[in-house]
């Protein structure tokens, strides 16, 4: 099953209430918000109403908000090699 990945690239401020209502219905609250919906006719119709504002890609699996956050997060760049006090453990 495939999904639409919809990202709001341009704000809906100043657009007619109907257009802003479509954005609200899709859960696109502010710019660069990304939502996933299963591919269906009704969602396709909603996307067509706001096609000038969004970037749409077809993906095979949706991502949760936590997964999107995790994918943005950079590597920590370190790991704890030795805890304090562990160096003397062998001598006890």
């Amino acid at each position, binding site marked *: 099953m495939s999904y639409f990945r919809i990202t709001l690239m341009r704000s809906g401020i100043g657009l007619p209430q109907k257009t802003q209502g479509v954005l609200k219905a899709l859960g696109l609250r502010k710019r660069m918000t990304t939502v996933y919906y299963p591919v269906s006719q009704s969602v396709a119709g909603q996307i067509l109403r706001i096609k000038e504002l969004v970037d749409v890609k077809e993906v095979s699996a949706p991502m949760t908000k936590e997964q999107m956050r995790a994918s943005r997060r950079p590597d920590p*760049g370190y790991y704890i090699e030795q805890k304090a006090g562990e160096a003397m453990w062998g001598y006890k």
Partner: protein
Amino acid sequence: MALLTRTARRALLETRFPLPPAFLLPLRAHITTVSHNLETDNVPEPLIRSGQHISQDLKDKVQSPPQLPSDAPPPASPASRPSPHARDSIISTTITPTIRALLPLLATQPTHYITIHIHGRPYLLTQGDTLRLPFQMPHVRPGDVLRMNRATHIGSRDYTLKAPEPVKGNADHVKKVYYLDERLFTCRARVIAVETEPVRVEEKTKRRQRHVKHVYSKMYFTVLRISELEVKGLEEYEALVGE
């Protein structure tokens, strides 16, 4: 002879205008409001079609859809498109000829510097440096030894080993950040302290009110010392890669 040619020329001129003047001719054309050009009855078929001529090339093109070259990469599957702002860390492990030639020179030259990345932020350091991080590192205590494993530059006085430049992400592909292979170097840091700053007091006031609210805040910063920085030689690195 001259006379003959003159008569011949006259004969030619006369054949060029064989018809008498138009007003002497009988009225042959139909008088009609329909344009003669639009009547298709008496126009041959190829002439009608001449406006919409379709070349053989175009016919071939329509018959066979465009074929990609056989060595073209397969189209990206939808699965390989995660979140648009995601980042991808790539650690290059190939030993290029340049690395093969210059790594021994870099490794033998003393005092190296390194650009390590902690949570995606770069810090240019050498051995013995003290680094006050702009945050409190979670789950560490003074005395812990950290191993740094993300670096983009290793350098000495004359040589620098750089990872490729990061590629900015867009709607089609995620951001790509390139790091050096962590087996190329050994960088250890010891947590030596957790520093604090003086308490900040911010005065919050409302209009037409005598009350002043004080908001206190105090930040904690982890301090690291780079206890060990070693760059591996080529043989050592090749042995590690070969494993």
